[in-house]
């Protein structure tokens, strides 16, 4: 989102400005001309726009996003003479179900028969289709209302065309399931019959536009429509970026600097060129730090097939200059964060007199939590096909942000955007990784170097993990106290984590507002004395947004500390959590200066009542309070993120050897009205499993500047045997259309890890403060005895 008065770039430079949240501090490439010189050192000039912390944005939600929102039915709906309705989906499908949910909204208002609806994917073009940057849990939240308008307008245009032809009042014509009916005259016609006439009519808007009442919804909120791509997926026909095949294409892999900021000193391609099938070895320019979405550089191997390219790369001889991050070491970095967080840090927010109250308090805790770097590791690694010559470029890519991709390619190839086409494929998982189109840029540069030969560029799993845009690493220190009645009194939270802003400009070494606004400055808590500090944390690798982003460490720390303080006070964790949240009320986000995910503070206040409610529903669903034997336990956590409210209760069973099994998880979600409850449920199930997995085994460590882990043997993801026996998703407020919509893709994740570690404490008395859990629980029964 660009602030008023600043020239919002729509060129290659626009990509960084579209960081994860609309409220991200705007980062503007001030010199597109400089950028157009190419990738050489110093060509990329980035600058940070003035902070607007005290000046809330005037446009909220989708209206504040680049490209805005579109509701013109002529963009999204086409009706053929045979009645087939084709609906354009302009958001990226990565498993969240948007290719089903977007068309469902339009089809419902249009009164189309779902069996006669086809879905087509829009190319990247935000000027035409409005914002397409699929992240931040925004697709349905922002597009529900404009897409309803588009569908309703199309319906009314069909009715108007029929009314003109039949010479009857439009108000007497009913559109239902692909059929127009006039009861008075007994006339009936299919949608196809009036499609052409309707297309020539003006688009109704304002008061002339008649939306359905929610009670009239046929598909929205019903959960009866299966995934539009289900059949293609189960038969192997679904096309992901890596599946693209273009006549005459060649295959490439790239050897990239293993350390961020490194570069090739010299390379020898002789042995690689002898590998059968290898066609060419080409050096690839890289951007200096901060590299934003630009390639890291290295040496590319181009071959007749992927395997030959991989084998050729193995034979490359490369000497690297590892650059300024060669000393990055996770153990030492953690120690530095601990030191930083034990002294007063930059003040972010305070109410009350936290230090004074903590000093006086008798019952208090001082605890530190650590959450390591994580890699996204979507099952489909980054991959793209690009054909780029002097006249234009065409890409087929699994990207979350097709417009950012288009702008990036246009800038790199010095082409007007109109000559760059981005075909959006399915994404085999995204999780934030595929918002960064660096891999498409690599393919584009190579295709151009090969005189326009199409190039399929594949990241191997090792590439994906070693050169990821990593989830941040974080040390969270909390000092907190209860009053004489055992209620939360004072809370000091110091959060030290490198910022995503370091990817786009000079390293701020402190979290930015949009990061602090993910679980710190937007906390609905009744603690009277609350203070947030932000100690220094420099970045030494590419930091990028990962599903739920800074909510992961912030919620892990806060929701763990709530349970720890409850224990210190001798209170039930669920009752204490409700006291921590406080009575049902709304808090003005402006009063905490939180960016509120770019949403209108009046429509989306911090609602303590909704947070309480999900906690109560999850607790009730799980049978909170039941007695469990030692080794088994329940844990609870609740968190608001992406303007939705989620609470989780995990039931854990800890084996004698410290292994975990999860009989049951209850997750309650209030994301406002649910367009596609089936997909909301599957997003929550997936968040539970991903959250349990990152808590149990998720970790990327760095040594000598590079990621230690490289594939699924050492970067451990949850497998089916680690999945809960049952996940119960409880929908709260799912049909309350008086509320605005919240996010779905991300809000499920943050409360999962702390609910698990809180359950482990209940089961074993062992408190996990450092993720991943790994083997920390081995021998817990003996440890428990030693503790008495």
């Amino acid at each position, binding site marked *: 989102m660009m602030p008023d008065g600043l020239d919002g770039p729509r060129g290659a430079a626009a990509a960084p400005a579209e960081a994860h949240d609309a409220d991200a501090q705007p980062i503007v490439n001030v010199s597109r001309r400089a950028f157009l010189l190419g990738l050489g050192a110093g060509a990329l000039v980035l600058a940070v726009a003035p902070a607007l912390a005290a000046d809330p944005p005037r446009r909220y939600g989708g209206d504040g996003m680049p490209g805005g929102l579109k509701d013109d039915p002529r963009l999204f709906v086409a009706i053929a003479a045979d009645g087939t309705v084709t609906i354009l989906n302009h958001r990226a499908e*990565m*498993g*969240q179900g948007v290719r089903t949910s977007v068309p469902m909204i339009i089809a419902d208002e249009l009164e189309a028969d779902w069996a006669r609806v086809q879905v087509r994917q829009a190319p990247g073009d935000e000027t035409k289709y409005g914002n397409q940057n699929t992240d931040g849990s925004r697709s349905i939240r922002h597009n529900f209302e404009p897409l309803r308008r588009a569908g309703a307008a199309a319906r009314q245009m069909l009715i108007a065309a029929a009314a003109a032809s039949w010479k009857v009042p439009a108000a007497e014509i009913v559109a239902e399931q692909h059929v127009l009916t006039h009861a008075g005259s007994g006339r009936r016609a299919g949608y196809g019959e009036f499609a052409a006439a309707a297309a020539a009519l003006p688009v109704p808007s304002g008061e002339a536009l008649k939306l359905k009442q929610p009670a009239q919804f046929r598909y929205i909120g019903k959960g009866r429509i*299966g*995934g539009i*791509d*289900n*059949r293609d*997926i*189960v*038969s*192997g*026909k*679904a*096309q*992901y970026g*890596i*599946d693209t*095949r273009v006549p005459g294409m060649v*295959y490439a892999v790239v050897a990239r600097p293993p350390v961020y900021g490194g570069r090739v000193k010299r390379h020898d391609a002789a042995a690689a060129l002898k590998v*059968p*099938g290898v066609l060419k070895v080409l050096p690839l320019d890289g951007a200096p730090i901060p590299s934003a979405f630009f390639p890291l550089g290295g040496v590319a191997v181009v071959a007749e*097939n*992927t*395997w030959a390219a*991989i084998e050729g790369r193995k034979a490359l001889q490369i000497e690297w200059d590892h650059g300024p991050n060669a000393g990055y070491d996770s153990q030492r970095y953690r120690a530095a964060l601990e030191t930083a967080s034990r002294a007063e840090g930059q003040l972010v927010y305070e109410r009350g007199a936290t230090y004074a109250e903590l000093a006086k308090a008798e019952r208090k805790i001082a605890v530190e939590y650590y959450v390591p770097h994580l890699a996204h*590791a*979507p*099952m*489909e*690694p980054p991959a793209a096909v690009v054909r780029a010559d002097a006249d234009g470029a065409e890409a087929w890519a699994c990207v979350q942000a097709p417009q950012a991709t288009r702008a990036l390619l246009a800038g790199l190839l010095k082409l007007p955007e109109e000559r760059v086409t981005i075909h959006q494929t*399915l*994404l*085999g*998982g*995204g*999780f934030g990784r595929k918002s960064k189109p660096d891999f498409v840029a690599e393919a584009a540069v190579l295709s151009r170097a090969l005189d326009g030969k199409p190039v399929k560029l*594949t990241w*191997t*799993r090792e590439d994906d993990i070693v050169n990821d845009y990593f989830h941040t690493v974080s040390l969270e220190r909390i000092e907190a106290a209860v009053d004489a009645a055992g209620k939360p009194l004072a809370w000091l939270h110091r959060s030290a984590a490198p910022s995503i802003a370091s990817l786009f400009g000079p390293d701020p070494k402190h979290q930015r507002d949009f990061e602090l606004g993910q679980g710190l400055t937007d906390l609905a808590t009744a603690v009277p004395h609350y203070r947030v500090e932000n100690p220094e944390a420099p970045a030494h690798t590419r930091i990028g947004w990962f599903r739920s982003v800074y909510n992961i460490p912030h919620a892990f720390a806060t929701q763990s500390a709530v349970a720890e303080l409850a224990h210190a006070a001798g209170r039930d964790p669920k009752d204490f959590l409700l006291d921590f949240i406080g009575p049902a009320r709304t808090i003005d986000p402006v009063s905490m200066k939180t960016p509120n995910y770019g949403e209108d503070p009046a429509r989306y206040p911090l609602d303590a009542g909704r947070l309480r409610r999900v906690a109560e529903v999850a607790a009730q669903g799980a049978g909170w309070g039941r007695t469990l034997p030692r080794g088994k336990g329940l844990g609870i956590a609740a968190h608001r993120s992406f303007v939705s409210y989620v609470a989780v209760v995990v039931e854990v069973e800890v084996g004698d050897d410290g292994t975990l099994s999860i009989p049951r998880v209850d997750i309650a979600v209030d994301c406002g009205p649910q367009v596609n409850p*089936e997909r909301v449920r*599957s*997003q929550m*199930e*997936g968040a*539970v*499993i*991903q959250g349990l*997995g990152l808590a149990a085994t998720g970790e990327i460590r760095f040594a000598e500047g590079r990621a230690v882990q490289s*594939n*699924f*043997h050492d970067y451990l*993801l*949850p*497998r*089916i*045997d680690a*999945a809960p026996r*049952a*996940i119960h998703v409880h929908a709260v407020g799912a049909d309350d259309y008086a509320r605005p919509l919240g996010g779905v893709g991300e809000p499920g994740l943050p409360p999962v890890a702390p609910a698990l570690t809180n359950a482990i404490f209940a089961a074993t008395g062992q408190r996990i403060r450092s993720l991943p859990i790994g083997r920390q629980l081995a021998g817990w029964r003996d440890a428990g005895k030693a503790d008495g």
Partner: protein
Amino acid sequence: MVTLTVNGREQRFDGNPEMPLLWYLRDVLGLTGAKYGCGMALCGVCTIHLDGVAMRACVTPVAAAEGRQVTTIEGLSPDASHPVQQAWTELNVAQCGYCQCGQIMQAASLLKDKPKPTDADIDAAMVGNLCRCGTYTRIRAAIHLAVEKSGGGA
């Protein structure tokens, strides 16, 4: 020269017989249903059937398929009608869907061996197939549903 049968059609390959079957299927034959995920038999998204048994195509050389029957997801059924495919569709198992061809091939192989698997059998058979979206609880349910669709394991 390697001679093998892929989805019922005989194929001859005169390239490097050490090439993993995965890249032969994807890059040479253009069958993209078997996916690349790790290249080390760690994730199972490349799962195919070799003479009816689930195998990881990413570590199986083309030479190992000499004279044998290779079945990919494209050849599991002509019209997505295999009970496992039907169950996957009905329960909306897929989120992003990328791993699901491998999951389905693994599950189909399991049901050949054990027509009525328990949850423990399912976990043991499917543990090599990763899903980053977290669809495992639905995968278990869908395998049980596929058993019902096949006539209760009869």
